[in-house]
């Protein structure tokens, strides 16, 4: 792995963070009106009288440095964002955006890392088994079913599972909302509750994601099957099993790792909405609260943290990839 490659990946990473932060800075300033006036208008709509409006707005503008030149504001904003300082949430005022995020982020990361790894592994095995003659018919049918539902968005599968398993059969809790409040401390009871409420969201993501990995792996296996080294391995009289594992699967696996990096953005978007469907206490639900109340600082904080998480994931995949495939270097073609 060349220094050049690492440097370029790090540069892209920094660029992504910068774009996301700048977008956060620019958007509120591009639309007419400012948040304080909007808040006051909302209070008036709700029938509250606000006296000294003009003075109040002026005081707030001064307090938040909105009278400073735009360039100064921008630098201050970037500095704050790099410290993950997004100010206060409007809906739950004394709470900072950062503390809401740090309370909900572990839930999302836990759910996503487990389901993504499971979906990737299961999908790749199913896709590879497709090419193996000894695979039982039932397994083939299951794989086909998973491939057919793969294009469906996570949230549609979540809605159907919520109805079937949560409300009709009542096998699993339909919403996480009440379970979170019952938890206390780190003990077996809490862990079993976490598993209980995470199963439906996790199952939705798994069902939606496994198929596309299987499909991609199947395509790569077909491509690899035509290669000379497979023919040679057969001619040498190697066992089918050895050809499958050591020759075909190993080579077909590489592009799947790249795909893992690219798909992270989709997975995060999809999982966010699954959380909304099940009211799972992660970033997605925090985002739902934020959008329902037009809590702009919270929306900005959450969207920024989501972009950063995906960028970190992609960076890790990019840096691992050359270790798996020594042929990859960063070269200008």
């Amino acid at each position, binding site marked *: 792995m060349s220094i050049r490659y690492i440097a370029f990946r790090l540069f*892209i990473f920094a*660029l*992504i963070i910068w*774009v*996301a932060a700048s*977008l*956060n800075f620019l*958007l*509120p300033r*591009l*639309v007419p009106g400012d948040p304080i006036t909007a808040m006051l208008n909302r209070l008036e709509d709700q029938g509250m009288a606000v006296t000294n409006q003009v003075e109040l707005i002026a005081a707030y503008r001064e307090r938040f440095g909105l009278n400073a030149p735009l360039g100064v504001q921008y630098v201050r904003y970037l500095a704050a964002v790099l410290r993950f300082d997004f100010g206060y949430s409007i809906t739950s005022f004394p709470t900072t955006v950062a503390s809401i995020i740090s309370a909900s982020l572990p839930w999302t990361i836990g759910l996503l890392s487990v389901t993504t790894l499971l979906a990737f592994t299961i999908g790749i095995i199913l896709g590879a088994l*497709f*090419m193996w003659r000894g695979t039982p018919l039932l397994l*083939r049918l299951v794989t086909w079913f998973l491939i*057919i539902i*793969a*294009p*469906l*968005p996570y*949230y*549609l599968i979540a*809605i*159907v599972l*919520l*109805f079937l398993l*949560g*409300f009709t059969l009542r096998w699993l809790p*339909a919403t996480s909302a009440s379970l979170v409040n019952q938890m206390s401390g780190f003990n077996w009871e809490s862990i079993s509750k976490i598993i209980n409420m995470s199963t439906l969201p996790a199952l939705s993501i798994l069902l939606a994601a496994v198929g596309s990995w299987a499909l991609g792996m199947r*395509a790569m296996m*077909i*491509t690899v099957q*035509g290669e000379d080294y497979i023919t040679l391995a057969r001619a040498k009289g190697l066992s089918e099993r050895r050809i499958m594992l050591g020759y075909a699967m190993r080579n077909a696996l590489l592009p799947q790792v790249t795909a893992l990096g*690219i798909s*992270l*953005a*989709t997975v*995060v*978007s999809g999982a*966010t*909405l699954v959380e*909304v*469907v099940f009211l799972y206490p992660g970033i997605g639900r925090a*985002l*739902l609260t934020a*959008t*329902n109340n*037009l809590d*702009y600082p919270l*929306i*900005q904080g959450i*969207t920024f943290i*989501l*972009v950063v998480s*995906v*960028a970190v994931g*992609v960076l890790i995949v990019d840096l691992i990839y050359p270790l798996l495939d020594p042929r990859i270097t960063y070269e*200008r*073609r």
Partner: protein
Amino acid sequence: MLANWKLMLGFLLLGLLAIGALGGPRLIDEAATQPLYASFNKPPSAAHPLGTDDVGRDLLALLVYGLWPTLSIGLIAGTLGTGIGTALGLISGYFRGPVDLVIRTLSDIVLTIPLLVVLILVASFTRTTTITGTALIVGLLAWAGPTRAIRAQTLSLRERAFIRVAKLTGMNDFEIIFLDLLPNLLPYILAGFIDAIAGGILASVGLQLLGIGPLLIPNMGMTLNSAFAGGAMIRGYWWWWAPPVIVLTVLFLATFLITLALDEIANPRLRGNAA
């Protein structure tokens, strides 16, 4: 190409949805999509085949009148995303050099940023509530995928003999791009377009689940949003949320079949594997 059953089935399903979207409103009175049209929360009956929602709108009417707005979000966003993507991909792949580096880096960045996340940010700040507004935002953010695909194909096409011949005969870059490259890229552009339609609808419905976007005009996302807000799940009103879910499922399956078929046409190795 026409013998491919996946392609045929995909277009058939899309066609059925389009017929329902364009023909349905002729059969049903638009007044039925308004609140207080019928009594609230009624299960399917002869008068209201799909029942009514919690403000007395006829759900069949909402479904039929909502089809076209939903499809049009996909069409507008798809056209915009594929259009920008094709142009950038062609420029990047054909001219290469510093332009390529800039476009490639840009599309890498956009691909890494979750579309839905930016969409939420932009839509909540601009407070867009129209179909066109949402579609434009989605379309302007959905060009990175097509750019990448078209660039890769252009890179391999430009090395082929017929492009070199075209250069020797004195065609300029403009002519080569439009007369030689573009026709050969059509299957990829079509696949990108179909993908972008599905992506646009997926993103806009996702946005509506969060309560942002076009929630005032009948469309699939609006019905789903109101079903969730109205507790259709807990109260067991399946007729409220199931129809949009089924329509969206058909839509995503159709677009998936078409892209799968176009993939097979472009990569013959994938074709005809019975397993």
